[in-house]
């Protein structure tokens, strides 16, 4: 019989319940349905894609009488193969929750009261138009989401940048993926992974870094389990200060002091070079070395790189800084070298003030060993939202970028997009707009006068959330106008000036683009509840009313598009002759196929499993990057300067807020399997809510003993910014000196982001959710 060394979840939940933490009612649904109802209509099965994380699981929706009644994994899906997780399986309950927002609501005398759609949309248009007319286009802002459909994000980007003329266009992927983008762009020239989930089947070594894959990407974890089941020669290395559930399959675990892992990655590179495990021919042909001197990147040599590692990052030096034994670093490097190696990482690397550098160092390991562009060999940043990649990163719906790899700073890129969109030349501004943190700071200073928040919950998810909640909702003279479009009540809808009810994913049709560059169509299978409308419909309506008020040129959007199908062809055109080229992904193909991975330049191209590889990447066969000198299987990083990827010599700087005598513990946040982000969806399924009814904090037994804390005790976690009080869970999961809490609960005492820090990576502008200094006390 397996046993658990940890306190049982029952112990914890009982303690939580005793403290008054709400436990959802409702039994397992298996008990609800016993016999099929006589005369019930048959179930129709419709191919779709999951609403949750960036894995992009293919699903089949069961529909009866216009209602979503079941969901199953799609066994014919080429990469997720029918696997799904509990969050997906409970989507029918989540979508049909009685808590769905059904009517527009406007704040009057401090309370939200119903308002008609027409009046609501006039109010939105009036407030935005008056702000633009009185204060200029940069007085308004859009804050979108990696959960909106690609067509919705593209339309919002088109409206704000090319219609209104502001680059104040952001989205919540800034909080989760921006450092991965920065890593891919600075190393390879363009964003997005070059490999795919196909590599899982071929890898002999998995390197999981800052990724609780088992809970946050359970289908990827299951694929890794399956790969291990096929042969004992498959090894798993984990680099993470927590012993998350992935430790259960790890052959080697490296647990650095949080924030001090960059030197471990450098030290692995050092071992690889010293042991001759690097690929000299590949490096010579495909890699260049760079460092930053006096604020500017400069080319350096291989010998400079080796000298840099030798001076700063031998395993022994790395051990002194990180706490990871040198012997383990050496062992990890040698396992990595065995390969082919697939690395997966997520927020543990990305949500850092050195997130871009951490991503660079992951790529360094793959580049020097040529563990890239071959089956089973790829550096792969997993994504947390269903459409952060396709919807926000690829469509350029962030303040500094334009669709499909273009940037606002480049005149040629602005001109290309202005021409495609029919914008007046010069409308798109050359200067990046406000990034997420700066945008909400500007809102708090009343410099942003009107903001549209779409399908996201910043009052819950922004770090150091208290001042940003005030920015959104605190009553004050001439308070900026904040309108929120969402499907469920959230901390943000609670304090917004206007709340518009949104359709959920199964109530509208569009495209999600997941982590492996696969674009997948999800059809509308049911009507939204009440008066809810799709984000796309609302954005079209909004654009039309701005055109009527003269702040967007007449006919710029109005009359051009009615459905998401209509705008798709323009998006395809925007991708033409870029490294993202998906001209071959017609709507008809997406209806029929289980998603297609770009580049897909022609309608007869099956999609690309590995970019930058001759014989696989069609852009090496025709078009601006065609190269007939390459042999099949050879690599060309054609998007990088000189077609050579960059190995960066990055310093291993500490986190923004190291621990000290007053705040001696490291606080880190994350997720559990049953819930997702701010919990607004998963808390709607009684089974999921009940599995984890309240927030908790993992404390190492050594620390718990010092604090006099037992499992179930109330624990006060205080940072320089705020405090929470949650139940302690004393377990050997976090490193000693570290405390971890999930982010899903909205009650006042459980909002972990009251504690986190809003310092961000200077390159990616992604905040350091994963590390801040706190003190702990039994409450």
């Amino acid at each position, binding site marked *: 019989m*397996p046993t*658990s060394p940890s306190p*049982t*979840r029952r112990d914890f939940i009982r303690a939580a319940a005793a403290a008054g933490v709400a436990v959802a009612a409702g039994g*397992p*649904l*298996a008990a609800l349905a016993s*016999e*099929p109802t006589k005369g*019930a*209509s*048959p179930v*129709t*099965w419709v*191919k*779709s894609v999951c609403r949750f994380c960036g894995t992009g699981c293919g699903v*089949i929706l*069961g529909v009866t*009488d*216009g*209602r979503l*009644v079941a969901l*199953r994994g*799609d*066994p014919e899906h080429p990469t997720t193969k*029918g*696997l799904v*997780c509990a969050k997906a*399986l409970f989507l029918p*309950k989540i979508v*049909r*929750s*009685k808590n769905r927002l*059904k009517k527009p609501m406007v704040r009057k005398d401090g309370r939200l009261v119903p308002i008609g*759609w027409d009046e609501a949309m006039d109010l939105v248009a009036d407030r935005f138009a008056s702000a633009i007319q009185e204060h200029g286009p940069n007085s308004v802002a859009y804050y979108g989401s990696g959960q909106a459909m690609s067509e919705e994000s593209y339309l919002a980007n088109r409206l704000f940048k090319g219609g209104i003329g502001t680059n104040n266009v952001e989205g919540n992927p800034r909080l989760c993926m921006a450092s991965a983008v920065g890593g891919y762009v600075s190393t390879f020239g363009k964003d997005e992974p070059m490999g795919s989930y196909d590599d899982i089947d071929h890898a002999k070594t998995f390197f999981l870094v800052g990724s609780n894959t088992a809970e946050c990407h359970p*289908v990827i*974890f*299951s694929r890794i*389990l*399956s790969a291990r*089941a096929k042969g004992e020669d498959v090894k798993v290395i984990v680099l993470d200060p927590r012993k998350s*559930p*992935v430790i*259960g*399959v790890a052959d080697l675990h490296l647990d650095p002091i949080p924030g001090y892992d960059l030197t471990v990655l450098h030290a692995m590179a050092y071992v690889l070079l010293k042991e001759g495990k690097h690929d000299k021919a590949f490096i010579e042909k495909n890699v260049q070395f760079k460092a930053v001197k006096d604020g500017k990147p400069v080319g350096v040599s291989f010998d400079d790189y080796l000298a840099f590692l030798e001076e700063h990052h031998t395993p022994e030096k790395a051990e002194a800084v990180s706490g990871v034994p040198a012997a383990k670093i050496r062992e990890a490097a040698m396992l990595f070298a065995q390969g082919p190696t697939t690395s997966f990482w997520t927020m543990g690397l990305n949500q850092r003030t050195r997130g871009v550098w951490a991503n660079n160092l992951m790529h360094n390991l793959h580049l020097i060993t040529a563990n890239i562009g071959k089956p089973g060999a790829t550096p792969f940043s997993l994504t947390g939202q269903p459409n952060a990649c396709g919807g926000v990163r690829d469509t350029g719906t962030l303040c500094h970028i334009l669709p499909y790899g273009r940037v606002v700073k480049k005149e040629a890129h602005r001109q290309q997009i202005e021409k495609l969109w029919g914008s007046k030349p010069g409308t798109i501004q050359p200067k990046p707009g406000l990034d997420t943190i700066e945008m909400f700071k500007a809102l708090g200073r009343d410099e942003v006068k009107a903001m549209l928040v779409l399908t996201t919950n910043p009052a819950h998810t922004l770090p150091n959330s208290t001042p940003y909640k005030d920015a959104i909702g605190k009553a004050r003279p001439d308070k900026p106008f904040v309108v929120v479009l969402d499907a469920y009540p959230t901390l943000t809808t609670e304090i917004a000036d206007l709340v518009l009810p949104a359709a959920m994913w199964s109530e509208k049709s569009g495209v999600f683009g997941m982590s492996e560059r696969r674009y997948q169509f999800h*059809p*509308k*299978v*049911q*009507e*939204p*509840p009440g*008066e809810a*409308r799709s984000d*796309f419909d609302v954005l079209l309506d909004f654009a039309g009313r701005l055109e009527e008020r003269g702040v967007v040129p007449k006919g710029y959007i109005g009359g051009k598009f009615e*459905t998401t199908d209509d705008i798709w062809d323009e998006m395809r055109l925007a991708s033409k002759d870029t490294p993202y080229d998906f001209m071959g992904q017609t709507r008809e193909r997406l*209806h029929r196929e289980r998603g297609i991975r770009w580049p897909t330049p022609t309608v007869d191209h099956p999609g690309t499993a590995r970019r930058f590889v001759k014989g696989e990447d069609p852009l090496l066969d025709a078009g601006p990057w065609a190269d007939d000198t390459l042999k099949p299987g050879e690599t060309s990083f054609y998007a990088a300067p000189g077609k050579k990827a960059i190995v960066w010599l990055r310093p291993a700087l500490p986190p923004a807020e190291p621990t000290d005598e007053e705040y001696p513990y490291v606080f880190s946040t994350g997720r559990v*399997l049953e819930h997702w982000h701010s919990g607004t969806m998963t808390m709607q399924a009684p*089974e999921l809510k009940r*599995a984890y009814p309240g927030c908790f904090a993992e404390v190492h037994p050594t620390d718990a003993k010092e604090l006099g804390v037992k499992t179930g005790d109330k624990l006060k976690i205080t940072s320089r910014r705020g405090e929470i009080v949650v139940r302690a869970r004393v377990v050997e999961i976090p490193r000693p000196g570290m405390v971890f809490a999930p982010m899903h609960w909205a009650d006042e005492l459980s909002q972990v982001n009251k504690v986190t820090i809003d310092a961000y990576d200077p390159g990616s502008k992604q905040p350091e959710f994963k590390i801040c200094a706190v003190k702990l006390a039994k409450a």
Partner: protein
Amino acid sequence: MRTARYPTLVLAVLAAILCAACGDDEPTCVQPGPVASSPLVIPDAAVVDFVSWGVLPSEEFAEHAFPPTMPDKAWHQDLWTPEACLECHATGEEDAPIVKHEGMPKLWLEGACRSCHVIRPDED
């Protein structure tokens, strides 16, 4: 095997739209507002033949739509590999129900059981 095609579904949806009774409990009855959302058009190509593995029609959610939850036993807490689960669920040890998953892909038995089966805390 259950199959259906677009016209059938449209009729079903129309019937649902015409439903007069609408309470506040699940499932939410459909009442489009004054500005309708985009039309319901399920592409024929997206409708698939599917072996439904026991999912049967019902008036509420489909029967067997949701995976069974697990009782909150200590040994369920930290099991993340199928081998650990199958120690009991392949043999019936501790009266554990024998896992069947009949007709489902083999891969599903190689994955993490916890991915789908969430813990059901005791209600006492």
